[in-house]
């Protein structure tokens, strides 16, 4: 059954992808701005300007013609070429995606660990201090703007103590990952902690928990094996959504930390009206979201066998 479900989901996603390209394309064309002015600088004669326009096939053939041209370029390989760098969109995205993936993975790990642990502690401990601490931390995490928190971390750990690098990806060292990942993961951690706490509280008095206690199972084991597993569905949904959006690149975090990822690249492309890159980036993002959603569907079954994939 899972294989059939997978095939069904993949087929279903095709109209979504086509729809996304059409909507993005129309939106881009409605927005003012012309990529040619980024290429030619401040001084170019009119004949040469037209030659360049011709060469890059910018604004040719009307809206439908351009869309067809775009789809054609996409299938011819590389999803078309960037107006600005003349590189294939695929290769430019492929160069940055590993960075985005690393940051997303590390951020989500941080948010899962800290969020779930905090949530469990505050759901189970009877000491008001922990509960209050959780409320303070999560309110802080949710309400602090990312750019402020990022700059704050740079100020403390790079400028004052100089123990962590402020920007760049280095040669791939872990140290470069820590500040951006904490910045990015903090908000998701806060949401997760709240969600975990509510979910855990709702299963705390369930019969299977009381039964497990009666059988003399260690409380830690009850929490991890019985309660948490049953409380996981909403948590996994939240993690999936966050992870999906992290994989699409996180513009603010990437900009603050000079992190060379997909998000800042696409924003740059938007500023330069580099249509092939914007379209490619959005298509990649949609594909990621669809994939993550399918994976989450499978995880549901894993955590709750009562759910069936149809």
């Amino acid at each position, binding site marked *: 059954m899972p294989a059939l479900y997978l095939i069904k989901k993949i087929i279903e996603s095709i109209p979504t992808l086509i729809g996304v390209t059409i909507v993005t394309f129309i939106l881009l064309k409605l*927005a*003012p*701005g*012309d*990529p040619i*002015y*980024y*290429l*030619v*600088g*401040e*001084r*170019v*004669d*009119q*004949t*040469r*300007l037209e*030659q*360049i326009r011709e*060469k890059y096939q910018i604004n040719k053939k009307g809206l439908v013609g351009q869309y067809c041209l775009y789809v054609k370029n996409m299938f011819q390989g590389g999803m078309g070429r960037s107006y*600005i*760098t*003349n*590189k294939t969109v695929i290769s*430019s995205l492929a*160069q*940055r995606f590993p960075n985005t993936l690393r940051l997303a993975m*590390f951020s989500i790990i941080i948010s899962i660990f800290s969020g779930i642990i905090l949530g469990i502690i505050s759901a189970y401990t009877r000491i008001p201090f922990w509960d209050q601490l959780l409320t303070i931390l999560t309110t802080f995490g949710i309400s602090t703007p990312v750019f402020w928190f990022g*700059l704050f971390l*740079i*100020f403390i750990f*790079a*400028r004052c103590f*100089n123990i*962590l*690098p*402020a*920007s*760049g*990806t*280095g*040669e791939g*060292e*872990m*140290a470069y990952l*820590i500040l951006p990942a904490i910045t990015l993961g903090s908000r998701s951690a806060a949401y997760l902690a709240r969600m975990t706490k509510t979910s855990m509280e709702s299963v705390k008095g369930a019969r299977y928990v009381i039964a497990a206690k009666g059988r003399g199972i260690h409380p830690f084991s009850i929490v991890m094996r019985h309660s948490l597993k049953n409380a996981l569905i909403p948590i996994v949904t939240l993690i999936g959504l966050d992870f999906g959006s992290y994989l699409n690149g996180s513009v603010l975090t990437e*900009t*603050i*930390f*000079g992190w*060379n990822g997909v998000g*800042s*690249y696409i924003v*740059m492309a938007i*500023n*330069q*009206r580099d249509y092939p890159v914007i379209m490619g980036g959005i298509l990649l993002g949609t594909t990621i979201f669809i994939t993550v959603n399918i994976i989450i569907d499978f995880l549901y079954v894993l955590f709750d066998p009562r759910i069936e994939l149809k």
Partner: protein
Amino acid sequence: MNKKLLIYVISGLLMFNGCELKKRTYDTLYLRLKQDITTLDPAFIVDVDGGMLAAYLYNGLVRLDKQLNVIPDIAKKWEISTDGKTYRFYLRNDVFFSTGEKVTAVDFKKSFERIIDPEVSSPRSWIFDKVKGKDLFMSGKSREVEGFVVVEDHIFEIVLNQPFSPFLSILTIPNAMIVKPDGNHGIQYIPKGTGPFIFNDWQRGNKISLVRNNNYFDGKPNIEKLVIRFIPEDFTAITEFENGNLDVLEIPRSEFEYFTQYDRWKNLVFSTEILNTYYLGFNCEEPPYSNPMFRRAITAGINRDMIIKNFMSSRVTKAGSPVPQILINEGISFTPQHDFDSSYAKSELEKSGVNYKNLTLTLVFNSDKEMEGIAELIQHDLGNMGLTIQLEELEWTTFKEKISTGEAKMFILSWWADYPDIENFLYPTFASVNRGSAGNRVRYKNEKFDTIIEQARTCVDMQTQNKLYCDALNIISNDCPWCCLWHKKKYTVIQPWVKNYFLAPVYNIDKGLEIKLEKRQ
């Protein structure tokens, strides 16, 4: 349980292994740019940052010294014919490309033809506008440019249609630097050059690294490597600088006071005038801006001294004409643009006959914190004259499109020199043939000015030329197609271990030969 615990410990260790930061080395100079450059191919470089890097990688026939004089580069000397049409360059015979091949006159011919070649489509074809046979080659009717002549292996000649005084100056710009042409072209292509540095690596969006060319004909640079990092956020860049990870930093305006006043840095700050002019432009084809009296009224109504004093501090110098003072030689004396004078402004406004009381004018500018402040101050000044000004803030691409198409009627923009010549601030910007994307963004048209400027740029006699430039400047001061605001200065701060640093008024002067880092590891 123990097994699980072990897994946690291991993953914890994995997370923090490699936290040991690599120490930087002091054989490498680290610079910062705010964003990635577009290209390193001289045929396509149109920006200041790209031009700065081109100077490290390539050479031209001639280059500029610190005083903006044209001096020999690959050409050891040159002769200009008495009619001013033929330039003969004698090339050094000890210049090699990084591929090891010797530079000959043929390389110049091929490099220059690339710029005009319709297949390459370089946006800078205009630099050879006056070269004989350019149009035939550009339209595909000829297979070579007649005006580029290989006389001997090391003698290269350029023949022009008519004399053209800024031509030597034009030859110093990055687009006129030579590369080893190998049939490739395009923005992504990085050709081989002859410069003091050799291209090593480019991680798009992250950094570019160059290594020293040990065989450079003018002596090898002191530093072994040059790394240019792209850091968009100012605060992050400042932190990297304070931590010693950057050697030179262009001071962001948000931290201007900090660097120029704080004891630790104030003696390490450098500043220079750079060749640019910020202006308030009017679309001279559209009423009410087509009326010179109305433009004069606005120009005299803006209190530039006050804006500079309260808002820009010492980061700019006031502009009296479109041309920066360094480019105006002693022989040129002219009446500068009318200074702030509210009663004169008011009387010009009344004389203009424009029914301004029922008029709402729109001032368009690029979205930027500083621009926003300037626009508001201008709005205030013009408001005092009785004009109603509405502000429209646009992001860069839309802003440029609106200006190029003439849709923006009044806007704040700047003009940056391509080469240090007075002509560069008058011909592209005000000659009517250049209306629109060729530089005349204000769509100004004055036949008398057109004739004078064409005569001036093709004139070989210095005195006559000075006289013509005076006339041209007087016309502009009187007609006010621009309300000239100021010339922006550049400020940088360096680390104490950086020696022999100098800050050039033009971006492509520095070849990176002198600068050195004096610090033990």
